[in-house]
């Protein structure tokens, strides 16, 4: 079929040939009864009997007949391949069934694409289908079909275009070529997070930032109100003149002029914007800023949750399949082990090694399992004691690092506080009181104002500034350093614990997650304590520089700094520490230096890096609406940083990361981060008193009380429905119904599991039955053939004798 002449032949015979061919096909597909079967049996030798079984018929119907007739025309070397190809002709759509209409033909042509046959045959099939007589579609059906065709074509085109536009396609390919699919799944996860943040920032931009910048606020003056009212307080707060300060430092700390920008919670207005639309509708339009400010975080939280659950559920399903796949561990190793994407010699070598290691590990595990049964009571107790000890050490390390963060935070706050108050004794500024909010940068600010007066003070102050900045960043530097060092310690510790390799990854990941999130938790609790002591005061009466005037902004600033610090650290470690290390490892011959410099791409650490940042973003996005946008930029840049880490600094890891396993793991860790980050935000919304001076909720007891107040203004009917949903009249039946559903699905799942087990058993039994029957059959055939031969010989002898007789 692949030669040119057979094609020409086919062409010339096309018209009269096809119906014949169709008929032949039919016969082959539905063998005409026992007579034919018997013939087939006679022709087949006993060893090939298996191909005649019905289960094989789907693919093998034509092997015997067609294969032979064609083989005669071919050279003998072709025989094998053609035979296997002809098998697939059996999968062709059955032409002789009925006259099909155009739409069905089209569908069948589309189905050809899914057949495992070479292109030439596909083309022939298509030509055959196109030339077959078919009914023309008329009227509405025709239009419908055309529509389907156009839609199909559009979808294919669109898919192609989307595929071309896909972000970071070629870097992904490069990474896949050197590191395999497991590492790429990490980068895909990074991209997923980027898109998640992009969507969240879209929300925030549309509903918070744009209205804030476009709509005009009405100005209230303090003189119309009481001195204690929120209007006065906030007017005072906003009018504090934030004149000159070091712009760079302000940008990285979010203080000074940055504080009064749309970056932070403080500036968002508490009013319901109203404006008139001239032109067609002479109507008034409203935009309720506080409501938007609470609804937007709720909606992105729900969105993130849905996104995580959806992606996680996919992973979960895969995991379920995989838990069944545990049965096929070795098959997975052998048939799915090689990564066909690998293109580099070096990574291919490593892949070979890795596969070798994994196979070793599998064999080892078998042995460990056997050993475990043989293990003595004493050694077992010893092992458990060792594990217990190491877990205690881990716990101590975790607590110690928490304590370290606590101390660092207190130290920096104390030092900054005393530093500024000492100076305030020396100098009393007239603008000083108004600028008390810049607690942390106070000395710097004052210096800048007096810079013209005292030239000598300048140098002094520069160091002071530097010191202050350092002090301010101290807790964050502390956290990041801990995150760098402690996981290494954990890595060393775990080697004493004798876990299986799969367990090792999970246990280290869990411990590192605990470290990161607990450090974050300590920080949050510190901030919380600070806020509750110094938090709430009206700017008008505020004389103490340590008092916060807008604590939400303060929290936002802290988290903003944390993200920036993290990025800086990532950048520095990648380009200033790890790059020279890699350089040393590559260009030095000394073994010791090589040990020091070589680094492998350890997936859990890098996954944690980005999940940690996402946790901060979720935590801070309420206090600093710009944070998701910063996060988007962060992820965009960090992709290149990590790519650099991966491709330049690291050598492929000797541990094999499996794409199938890692995704669900990522999602579950991310979910943990989500829960931990949403907790504090929800608490602050529900319980804490919002600042008096700033933000959309000034003057309310809690943010939630505002929501309840707004809800009370809803139509009566709507409120009644919501209240009804909350009462037991609704809740109890709903609960019962849910329980019923739960039970139903549980029962269904149990039944399915049982069914699967039964079917599996049956499959095995059928296999044995088949084997048995085949043996019997082949024995029978051999007998039959012998008998035939004997009969033939006998008849031949008869013929012979008759000929002899006649010749006589």
């Amino acid at each position, binding site marked *: 079929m692949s030669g040119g002449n057979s094609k020409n032949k086919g062409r010339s015979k096309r018209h009269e040939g096809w119906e014949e061919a169709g008929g032949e096909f039919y016969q082959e597909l539905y063998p005409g009864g026992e007579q034919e079967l018997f013939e087939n049996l006679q022709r087949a030798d006993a060893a090939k009997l298996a191909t005649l079984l019905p289960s094989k018929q789907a693919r093998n119907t034509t092997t015997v007949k067609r294969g032979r007739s064609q083989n005669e025309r071919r050279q003998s*070397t072709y025989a094998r391949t053609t035979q296997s190809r002809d098998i697939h002709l059996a999968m062709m759509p059955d032409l002789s069934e009925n006259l099909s209409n155009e739409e069905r033909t089209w569908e069948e042509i589309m189905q050809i694409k*899914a057949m495992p046959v*070479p292109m030439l045959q596909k083309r022939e099939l298509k030509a055959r289908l196109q030339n077959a007589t078919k009914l023309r579609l008329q009227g509405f059906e025709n239009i419908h079909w055309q529509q389907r065709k156009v839609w199909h074509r559009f979808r294919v085109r669109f898919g192609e275009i989307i595929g071309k536009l896909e972000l970071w396609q070629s870097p992904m390919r490069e990474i896949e070529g050197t590191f395999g699919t497991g590492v790429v799944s990490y980068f895909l996860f990074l991209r997923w997070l980027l898109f998640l943040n992009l969507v969240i920032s879209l929300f925030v931009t549309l509903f918070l930032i744009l209205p804030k910048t476009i709509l005009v606020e009405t100005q209230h003056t303090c003189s119309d109100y009481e001195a204690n009212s929120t209007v006065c307080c906030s007017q005072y707060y906003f009018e504090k003149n934030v004149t000159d300060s070091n712009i760079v430092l302000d940008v990285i700390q979010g203080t000074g002029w940055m504080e009064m920008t749309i970056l932070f919670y403080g500036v968002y207005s508490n009013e319901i914007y109203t404006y008139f639309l001239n032109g067609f509708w002479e109507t008034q339009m409203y935009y309720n800023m506080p409501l938007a400010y609470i609804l937007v975080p709720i909606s992105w939280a729900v969105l993130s949750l849905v996104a995580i659950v959806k992606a996680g559920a996919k992973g979960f399903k895969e995991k379920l399949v995989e838990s069944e796949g545990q049965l096929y561990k*070795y098959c997975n*190793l052998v*048939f799915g082990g090689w990564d066909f994407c690998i293109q580099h010699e070096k990574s291919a070598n490593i892949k070979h090694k890795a596969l070798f290691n994994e196979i070793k590990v599998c064999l080892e595990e078998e042995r460990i399992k056997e050993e475990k049964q043989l293990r003595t009571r004493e050694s077992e107790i010893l092992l458990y004691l060792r594990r217990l000890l190491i877990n205690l050490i881990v716990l101590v390390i975790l607590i110690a690092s928490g304590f370290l963060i606590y101390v660092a935070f207190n130290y920096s706050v104390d030092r900054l506080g005393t530093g500024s108050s000492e100076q305030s004794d020396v100098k009393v500024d007239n603008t000083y009181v108004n600028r008390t909010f810049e607690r942390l940068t106070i000395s710097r600010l004052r210096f800048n104002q007096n810079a013209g007066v005292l030239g000598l003070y300048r140098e002094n102050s520069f160091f002071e500034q530097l010191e202050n900045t350092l002090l301010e960043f101290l807790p964050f530097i502390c956290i990041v350093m801990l995150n760098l060092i402690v996981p290494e310690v954990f890595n060393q510790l775990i080697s004493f614990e004798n876990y299986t390799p799969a367990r090792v990854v999970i246990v280290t990941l869990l411990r590192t997650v605990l470290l990161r999130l607990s450090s974050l938790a300590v920080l949050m609790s510190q901030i919380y304590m600070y806020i509750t002591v110094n938090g709430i005061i009206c700017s008008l009466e505020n004389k103490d520089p340590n008092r916060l005037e807008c604590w939400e902004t303060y929290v936002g600033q802290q988290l903003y700094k944390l993200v920036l610090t993290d990025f800086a650290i990532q950048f520095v470690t990648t380009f200033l520490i790890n790059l020279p290390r890699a350089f040393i490892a590559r260009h030095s011959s000394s073994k010791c230096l090589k040990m020091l410099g070589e680094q492998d791409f350890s997936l859990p650490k890098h996954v944690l890096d980005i999940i940690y940042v996402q946790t901060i973003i979720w935590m801070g996005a309420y206090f600093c609406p710009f944070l998701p946008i910063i996060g988007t930029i962060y992820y965009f840049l960090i992709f290149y940083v990590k790519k650099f880490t991966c491709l330049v600094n690291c050598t492929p890891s000797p541990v094999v990361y499996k794409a199938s396993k890692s995704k669900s793991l990522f999602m579950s860790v991310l979910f943990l981060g989500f829960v931990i980050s949403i907790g504090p935000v929800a608490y602050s919304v529900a319980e804490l008193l919002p600042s008096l001076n700033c933000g959309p909720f000034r003057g309310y007891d809690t943010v939630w009380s505002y929501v309840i107040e707004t809800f009370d203004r809803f139509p009566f009917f709507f409120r009644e429905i919501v209240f009804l949903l909350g009462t037991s009249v609704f809740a109890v039946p709903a609960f019962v119904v849910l329980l019923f559903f739960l039970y139903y699905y549980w029962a269904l799942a149990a039944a399915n599991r049982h069914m699967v087990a039964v079917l599996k058993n049956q499959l095995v039994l059928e296999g044995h039955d088949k084997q048995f029957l085949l043996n019997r059959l082949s024995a029978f055939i051999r007998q039959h053939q012998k008998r035939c031969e004997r009969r033939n010989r006998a008849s031949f002898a008869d013929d012979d004798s008759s000929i002899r007789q006649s010749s006589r």
Partner: protein
Amino acid sequence: MTENQAHSIAVPVEEIEKLPELKENPFKRRICEVFSHDGSGNLTFEDFLDMMSVFSEAAPRDIKAWYAFRIYDLDDDMYIGRGDLLEATRLLTRDELHAQEREEIVASVLDEADVDGDGRLSFMDFEHVVVRAPDFLSTFHIRV
């Protein structure tokens, strides 16, 4: 290129094996053989297209499973037998395993996958396993 050249001019197998996509693949020779029209490993343009379409990400699972079966069926007898599996493990680990370990692995694979107990894997057995092997689909493709 005239119409017939697409399936009559073949690139020799040695050239195909030098492609970066195949260069490091332990099964490269077998892949070429499976996709070439005459079993020699020399690929015509159409054979090459076939190969790329099978290895593309969009190719259906069944097609991938079928060609993977052909590739692992190194001796081309429509069964993946003991010898095939031994050879495959040898190719995968580059002679680093002992013969005895390889025997163990092959025995375990057969133990897992050989449903009908005939000591070799038919396509049915293979398909049954491979669609459940979580890594198969993600690794059996070549990015272009």
